[in-house]
């Protein structure tokens, strides 16, 4: 039992921003319930972080430690809007933090974008990482050339997965179905195409460096792309922007490398996609060659009138994630974020009482895992200052949520049940020499979660 008057907070979403909000709230003495649509926690750490980046995934150990706190509870397999409404949550808790991330993908808005053979990087990433909603997507790797649109870290992840051999991926936690499909891949050339120049690429130096260290692929670039104008030089010289300067140095080391491997990653700059073409499926991408205009850090790509065509049977647009609206919560559809002031949700000019926001759905889909910690800390700080003006809590908290779920025959997955899923996955992985083999359907996750504890409820979205 918690002390009378303890603040009770629900956090919707169990990715990094949700866990960091929970951590800060627990430290401030609150009782925290993290509500997650899937039976499994950790959001993009599970479904976004690339399988060949195991070190980053170790943040799950920190999240597990947070979950071990006596005032923490996990409610997996509970979807906001399906199993409980936002208004109910606001009634049950002193405050609700929306930390639902940005699960959709941005579109390019160019003709041919929806041709077969054109996919978003997000769906590809979710598929190889075993997200149940994407398990049944099919990708075709029977072509020789693939184009990736965008110069961010997600584009680099996709590039590595397409350029590594199955033997390199076999010992990672990439899903078996993806490994099997990639084993048939005939892709030899991967084109990584950005609409602006090398000084504006969004990737981080470490990720770019990895592209230069691929065992089976050479990296190829056109040296003339590394000739910079004065504004770009000024951007790179700015001491506040360490990363672009570092990655530019790395690009220079890629110049003039010999071709000695069977595959190649081609880096292209200043090419803005104009149309995806093909008879019944994508066969090529037509680009406008661009030149930059504008001041430092606000340069945009203007078409020069010249067009360039690249042959490709597979196109992955990696131009960013996009947040989706939550019923009953204010939303800015243009930016795909929830309007807020330092994490306090704003409904027009007025604060939405007891509603807060953290992570990508607050700031937009950028920033590595740790950036969400600072973001969630800000939100919690705002919440605590709002609490300071209020009488002690009368909120019923988790008991009310449990009763509401029981009345709807929803069986939540608590953290111990998640650990059973985890254990079963690790065991299945061990048999294959992998860190884990993920369950890719909600029903299988639930079966593992509730193994040996009575009948398993059928999910409605398996």
């Amino acid at each position, binding site marked *: 039992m918690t002390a009378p008057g303890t603040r009770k907070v629900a956090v919707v979403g169990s990715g*990094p921003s949700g866990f960091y909000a929970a951590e800060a709230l627990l430290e401030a003495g609150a009782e925290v319930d993290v509500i997650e649509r899937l039976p499994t926690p950790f959001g993009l750490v599970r479904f976004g972080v690339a399988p060949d980046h195991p*070190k*980053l995934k*170790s*943040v799950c150990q*920190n999240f597990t430690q947070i979950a071990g706190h006596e005032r923490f509870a996990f409610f997996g397999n509970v979807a906001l809007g399906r199993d409980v409404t936002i208004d109910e949550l606001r009634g049950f808790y002193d405050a609700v933090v929306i930390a639902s991330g940005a699960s959709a993908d941005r579109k390019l808005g160019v003709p041919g974008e929806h041709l077969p053979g054109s996919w978003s990087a997000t769906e590809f990433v979710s598929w190889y990482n075993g997200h149940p909603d994407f398990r049944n997507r099919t990708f075709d790797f029977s072509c020789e050339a693939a184009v990736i649109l965008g110069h961010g870290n997600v584009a680099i992840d996709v590039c590595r997965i397409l350029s590594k051999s199955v033997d390199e991926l076999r010992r990672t936690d990439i899903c078996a179905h993806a490994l099997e499909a990639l084993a048939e891949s005939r892709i030899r050339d991967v084109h990584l195409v950005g609409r602006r120049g090398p000084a504006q690429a969004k990737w*981080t*130096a*470490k990720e770019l*460096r990895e592209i230069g260290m691929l065992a089976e692929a050479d990296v190829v670039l056109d040296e003339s792309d590394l000739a910079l104008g004065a504004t770009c030089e000024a951007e790179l010289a700015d*001491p*506040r922007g*360490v*990363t672009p300067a*570092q990655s530019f140095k790395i690009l220079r080391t890629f110049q003039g490398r010999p071709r000695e491997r069977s595959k190649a990653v081609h880096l292209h700059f200043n090419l803005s996609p104009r149309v995806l073409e093909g008879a019944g499926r994508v066969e090529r991408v037509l680009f406008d060659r661009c030149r930059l205009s504008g001041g430092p850090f606000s340069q945009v790509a203007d078409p020069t009138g010249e067009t360039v065509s690249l042959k490709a049977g597979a196109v992955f647009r990696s131009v960013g994630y996009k947040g989706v609206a939550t019923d009953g919560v204010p939303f800015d559809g243009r930016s795909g974020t929830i309007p807020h002031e330092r994490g306090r949700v704003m409904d027009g000019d007025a604060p939405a009482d007891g509603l807060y926001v953290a992570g990508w759905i607050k700031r937009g889909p950028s*920033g*590595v*895992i*740790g*950036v969400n*910690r*600072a973001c969630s*800390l800000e939100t919690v700080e705002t919440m605590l200052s709002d609490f300071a003006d209020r009488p002690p809590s009368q909120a019923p908290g988790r008991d009310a949520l449990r009763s509401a779920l029981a009345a709807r025959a929803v069986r939540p997955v608590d953290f111990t049940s998640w650990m059973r899923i985890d254990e079963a996955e690790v065991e299945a992985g061990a048999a294959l020499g992998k860190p884990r083999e993920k369950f890719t359907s909600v029903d299988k996750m639930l079966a593992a979660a509730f193994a040996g504890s009575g009948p398993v409820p059928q999910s409605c979205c398996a």
Partner: protein
Amino acid sequence: MTHVVTENCQACRFTDCVTVCPVACFHGDDERLYIDPEVCVDCSACISACPVGAIKEEFDLSDDEERWIEINASRAPDLPVIRSKQSPLPTAEARRSELGLN
């Protein structure tokens, strides 16, 4: 590979770095901070968080910065973990201007 706090973390101790660390790998004395290489997961979030560009990847160190690898590795484990933002040293803003980083 790890990340290291270098020379520039001097007379400022901004501690913005610790707020973005996902794994609590920063340790500190009264002067400056150090990264525990055993704990750092190389996420690079701290690089752009530091107002004076003090944090670098091991790979990116110049020859005379290499010594910071050993300094971070040996100092960090003996010092307390710093996880919350603290007030910078009184000389911090002067230091930032001196480095031309306003």
